[in-house]
């Protein structure tokens, strides 16, 4: 219970930080506090947020996945290739997400089966999966015939304004609620926290450590697959070179959201707030016309500050 209340406090802090950022930019930019800009921010946050759902499970369990960006690119290529071959959009999207989950299973199998550290395994699969994506696409982008998939995270046309937010954002909200329930209300979720807090103790208590670890990487791949579907929707083409370094944005979002890289801490809501904070900084700086290098420094400072605080907190609690 204590875990819940302290994390609630931290979430309130994050939400306040997001509000302050938003108000700060709005004071400088008249168009920032408009519905249309909020929609833009939500659309731009969707990919990182969805990938962050899976990454939260992985980091809470004390792991890491560096291959997320490569999986996203791979999935856009798979979906585009299937569409080009005349496969139905629903099936193409489903198979794309499955391909993502399969990548996750590969990572999970190596990590739990061969007992190799997740950093090394996913550093390897980052290259392998990126390579497969490029090979599959013959080192070019793949044009796909137009389908409704490309409307998932597009700006809502006037006749569908009643949806308030693009379908992809609603998918994110639904997945976030589901993930939160799994993390906090199921045995699997409790095992994830237990293993992240102290893997050895969890093992001695008879928890199925290998199976749970395998599970979190499959989840990570699955969510990366959905993020890949959203990325395809934004690009409308399969692009084997997209999302290079996306995993770092995702990890940053999860860490800003209160997760500890040493495992045992973290929340779904926090990770999503983290993703939105990063998008808000990026979009705000960009709309104010700040050069890219300033933007990069600002984002970097925010990440280091919040991770530094994470250390402080850990030291105090120990």
């Amino acid at each position: 219970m204590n875990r819940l209340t302290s994390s609630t406090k931290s979430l309130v802090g994050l939400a306040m930080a997001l509000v302050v950022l938003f108000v700060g930019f709005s004071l400088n930019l008249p168009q920032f506090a408009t519905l249309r800009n909020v929609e833009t921010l939500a659309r731009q946050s969707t990919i990182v947020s969805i990938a962050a759902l899976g990454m939260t499970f992985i980091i809470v369990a004390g792991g890491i996945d560096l291959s997320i960006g490569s999986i996203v690119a791979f999935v856009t290529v798979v979906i585009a290739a299937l569409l080009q071959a005349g496969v139905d959009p629903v099936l193409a999207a489903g198979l794309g997400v499955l391909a993502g989950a399969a990548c996750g299973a590969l990572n999970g199998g190596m990590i739990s089966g061969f007992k190799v550290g997740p950093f090394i395994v996913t550093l390897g699969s980052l290259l392998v999966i990126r390579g497969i994506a490029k090979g599959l696409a013959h080192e070019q982008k793949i044009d796909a015939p137009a389908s409704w998939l490309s409307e998932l995270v597009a700006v809502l046309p006037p006749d569908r304004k009643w949806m308030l937010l693009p379908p992809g954002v609603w998918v994110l909200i639904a997945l976030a609620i589901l993930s939160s329930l799994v993390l906090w209300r199921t045995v699997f979720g409790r095992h994830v926290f237990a293993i992240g807090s102290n893997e050895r103790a969890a093992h001695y208590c008879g928890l199925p450590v290998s199976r749970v670890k395998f599970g979190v990487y499959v989840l990570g791949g699955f969510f990366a697959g959905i993020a890949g579907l959203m990325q395809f929707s934004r690009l409308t083409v399969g692009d084997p070179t997209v999302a290079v370094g996306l995993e770092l944005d995702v990890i940053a979002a999860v860490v800003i959201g209160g997760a500890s890289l040493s495992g045992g801490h973290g929340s779904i809501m926090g990770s999503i707030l983290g993703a939105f904070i990063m998008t808000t900084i990026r979009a705000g700086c960009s709309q104010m016309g700040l050069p890219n290098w300033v933007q990069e420094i600002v984002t970097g400072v925010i990440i280091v500050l919040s991770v530094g605080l994470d250390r402080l907190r850990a030291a105090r609690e120990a």
Partner: protein
Amino acid sequence: MKARAISILTAALLIAALGCGSKDSGNASGTNGSEPAPSGKSEYKIAVIPKGSTHEFWKAVKAGAESAGKELGVEVIWKGPMKEDDRESQIKVVEDFTTQQVSGIVLAPLDDTALRPPVENAVRSNIPVVIIDSDLKGGDTVSFVATDNFKGGQMAGEELARLLGGKGRVVMLRYQEGSASTNFREEGFLDAIKKHPEIEVVSANQYAGATTESAQKAAENLLAPLKKDDGSLGVDGIFTPNESSTFGMLRVLQDSQWAGKVKFVGFDASQKLVDGLKAGELQGLILQNPEKMGYLGVKTMVEHLKGTKVEKRIDTGAVLVTQENMEQPDVAKLLAPPKE
């Protein structure tokens, strides 16, 4: 936990403060840099979005865009994608400028399909878009300002025909399947050669591929069967449609001691190609004019905003560079080698 929340808040406040500060300084530098008008605020704010920011090519486009801004008294905002050559990053830049409600967007799309939705969205929000450098498939844009690659290819063909005195055997090594700009150059070249009945095209169906490495292999395979018994080359003229294919071909000619013995016209420039031109291993290079592209992109946008009717397609021209004219100041500027 509380400490964390407070510190993030502090950081956020800091950023907000930084934001206020740099916004003012941004305005100030804008006044100094691009607005001669004493009134300070310019009428139009035009965003120019390149494919990347580190290549020499884009630096020249930027120089052109800024000089147009100064000349016409409009504010030019230059902003490339956060990640070089990344489609997703460029989409975000277009979206941010759309939200910001700039007067117009001048865009060099990284992809002819992927950039269409954000451009359509900008146009729907009453922000006109001028496309530069590479075309966009569809989309209701104001104008397409770029090199007429077909014409560039024709120039290469004419020059090669002139060098050969109107007769001989030539080969063309194509660049890559599905690359629109180079395809136009290749077709332009063949079109010009067709007018010279005594010139025979020995091969025009081989592709160099994306890299210098692949171009070199393709050039070797292309030339090997054309080698005569005495070791000399059985063709008189060669054309290649871009930097990597030209360089790959040049390397093969150099390795086989054929360089200088065959007339060779290429496209685009790099330090190595300029050296080849100086050494007489290349007889001509066709160059684009990126500075003019940036200049005309902004100028076309301003004319459109002021209600003047503009051409749907504007050619920024190509220049033939030879050993004779490479020292002329205007040509030398186009050849200016990338600093390595």
